[in-house]
């Protein structure tokens, strides 16, 4: 019989595997690192002048917290992809034929996803600093922001798990997740203020979890109001967990027992 301590160790070992894969396969790293970098460079230098009317510093301040939120979503896709790959090859069967808790591969994949998020966020912040971005609040607010981002990623990770257990190939996980995430990330106030949008889009953008979370992050990093948008974001996180966690667990159990 495995003890809870051993179960935790197994989860950590499997999370370590997810992180080792990141080092070993540069393709994954490109996915996690290149995406935020390209978005940041493209939007600041290519579209930034047009969107912000020349005030690039103000635009940088507006989009860095938003791209951080996007990044966490992006890194979450990998959770479903890796679980799908394990389930469709014999790797899952191998683990399941060993005295390892059924939950360990799942917890391991989710933890590895959080590590990927942290790597992405570090790269993104590093580049933003080089480009002239400065935080205007204290380190405590910044830490709270990072913690909040991870909690946000963790809440929506179950969508990725669910999709990963639902479809046939890792490629379809990426495809389906991208389609699902697109209206969340782009129909939001990450890149443009929602005031410029037509009414119907603005209505969605204003209640979009990515917009709310971005506003909360702007407040935490740049200074400004946090409470209202944070409450909205927390409500979305609770909703995502309420809907997707049971679905994810059900489909995971169907694949894993």
């Amino acid at each position, binding site marked *: *019989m*495995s003890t809870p301590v*051993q179960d935790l*160790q*197994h989860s950590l*070992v*499997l999370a370590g*595997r997810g992180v*080792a*894969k990141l080092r*070993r*396969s540069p393709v994954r790293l490109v996915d996690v690192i290149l995406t935020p970098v390209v978005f940041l460079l493209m939007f600041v230098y290519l579209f930034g002048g047009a969107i912000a009317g020349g005030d690039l510093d103000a635009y940088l301040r507006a989009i860095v917290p938003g791209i951080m939120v996007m990044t966490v979503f992006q890194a979450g896709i990998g959770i479903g992809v890796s679980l799908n790959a*394990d389930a469709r*090859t*014999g*790797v899952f*069967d*191998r*683990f*399941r*034929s*060993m*005295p*390892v808790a059924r939950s*360990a591969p799942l917890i391991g994949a989710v933890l590895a996803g959080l590590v990927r998020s942290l790597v992405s966020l570090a790269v993104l912040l590093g580049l933003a600093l080089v480009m002239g971005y400065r935080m205007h609040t204290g380190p405590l607010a910044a830490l709270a922001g990072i913690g909040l981002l991870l909690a946000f990623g963790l809440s929506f990770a179950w969508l990725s798990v669910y999709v990963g257990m639902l479809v046939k190939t890792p490629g379809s996980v990426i495809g389906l997740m991208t389609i699902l995430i697109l209206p969340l990330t782009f129909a939001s106030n990450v890149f443009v203020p929602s005031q410029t949008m037509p009414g119907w889009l603005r209505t969605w953008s204003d209640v979009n979890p990515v917009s709310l979370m971005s506003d909360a992050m702007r407040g935490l990093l740049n200074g400004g109001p946090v409470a209202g948008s944070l409450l909205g974001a927390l409500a979305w996180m609770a909703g995502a967990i309420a809907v997707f966690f049971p679905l994810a667990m059900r489909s995971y159990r169907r694949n894993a027992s």
Partner: protein
Amino acid sequence: MHAIRAEGLIKRYGGTTALEGVDLEVPVGKVVGILGPNGAGKTTTVRILATLLRPDGGRAEVGGHDVVRDPVRVRSLIGLTGQDASVDEDLSAVENLVLLGRLLNLSKRQARARASELLERFELAEAAGRPIATLSGGMRRRLDLAASLVGRPRILLLDEPTTGLDPHTRNELWAVVRELVADGTTVLLTTQHLEEADQLADRVTVVDRGKVAAEGRPGELKRRIGGQILHVRPTLRGDLDAATRILAELTGTTPARDENTGLLSAPADDPMLVSALVRRLEQAAIPADELGLRLPSLDEVFLALTATSERNAA
């Protein structure tokens, strides 16, 4: 003492029945082969024994533990090598083995030591750090097998371990299995190849369409479909027709005739037929390169046994 005992295993997938009451016994320290064509239920049986599937009926014990009631104990006794790739393609051979060692509660140091021990034993040491994708088919299969041995399992389940391997690599793998058995490991293996069962297994269970068609020692099974085979190969192709007529007269059947090798064969239950055949060939002045009685090959046995269960089903 049985390492594995299954009684009346039933498994259904939707409307189709994969297993219709399979019985199986594997004595401790022996090799038992499950032999059958694709879709016979071999993999389903192994997956139930490995606690990956729940049976819909019947019961199975592995190492004395019920696979449904006590799966965790079963898992600590078995090693499984499935048909699918069961190593992580993104990691190296050594990383895969260390990972499994860590999951089996070895310390980092112990896991590394066990990994290099296994890599050495399976002649994979030089490939230890290479990406899995660069390994040959034979190396992959050896690594799969090594991966199932990290925890020193007493009972090894091998699902078609040599499918897709060239004869040389297959022989290597057979040698490894024999070594493991010599060390006291119990092995259950599935195969589509009678030669493999004949080479490795102490006993063979023949399954077809989810049912056991026959069970016994390879030699017993060969005898069970009756008698032996009388075969002769005339030296001259020109004598084939005359020799075929003689063999037909003696055995009262139509002999099988291999046009490529010039080999004639017919079932024979009377050993005296050999001397009769020699006399008749001498009288007809037909020289022969090869002549004698032999047990039928497992292929011939298998076809005969599954043809019987087909007739019974119809």
